[in-house]
């Protein structure tokens, strides 16, 4: 379980709307709990979509150089990289096959639907150990839990 504040949710929604009709992407920073299955997302770190401009409407990449910078910043501030968020413009907040093929275990993946420029559904996922599927981590509206 990961605690997900309203402030973090709002920040992701804003990023998704800003990037529309392209995909936004970024890193969830916070602190893990006793193990990698629980933690608190304290802030987001938006990252420029590293894909070619003509592909950004349905693809994103956080380039390794950017990932290194974020990880170093997180370590310097005593925070953990909990996972990543990205938007699906005019597309359901469900992980695609492309998402699964490129995902890593351990991290939380948050997907936001942006429909006609308006942020809508936000969902959370984690890759199964055998890479065969994503496991949904339902959002708890009351407690902002993943």
């Amino acid at each position, binding site marked *: 379980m990961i605690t997900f504040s309203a402030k973090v949710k709002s920040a992701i929604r804003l990023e998704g709307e800003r990037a529309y009709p392209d*995909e936004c992407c970024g890193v969830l920073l916070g602190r893990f709990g006793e193990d990698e299955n629980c933690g608190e997302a304290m802030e987001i770190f938006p990252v420029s979509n590293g894909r070619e401009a003509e592909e950004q409407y349905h693809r*994103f990449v956080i380039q390794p150089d950017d990932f290194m910078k974020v990880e170093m910043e997180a370590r310097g501030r005593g925070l953990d990289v909990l996972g990543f968020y990205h938007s699906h413009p005019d597309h359901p907040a469900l*992980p695609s096959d492309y*998402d699964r093929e490129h995902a*890593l275990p*351990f991290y939380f993946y948050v997907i936001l639907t942006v429909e006609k420029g308006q942020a809508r559904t936000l969902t959370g996922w984690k890759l199964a150990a055998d890479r065969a599927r994503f496991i949904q981590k339902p959002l708890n509206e009351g407690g902002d839990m993943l």
Partner: protein
Amino acid sequence: MTITIQIPTALRAFTDRQPEVRVEGATVEEAIADLARICPDIAQHLYEENGALRSFINVYFGDVNVKNLKGLETPLKDGDAIILVPAIAGGGGICP
């Protein structure tokens, strides 16, 4: 020759939580293959089914991506260290 591979947080579950693993190899390719031999559960996250290194796994030698050197054929010498750095990718498309 002994090479140190620094493991990203996401993959430490497959290295007994160790942040780095010592392997043998004369090239980047050999070093990563030895890592997969020592820690077999990590292999599926490093390699495609056809045996190619996954496109989102990058290898850095110092602060240089080996793609800008000789790629997987980049030679290594005893005591060198390399870092596995993931690129995080995804995007909308056909849903499962």
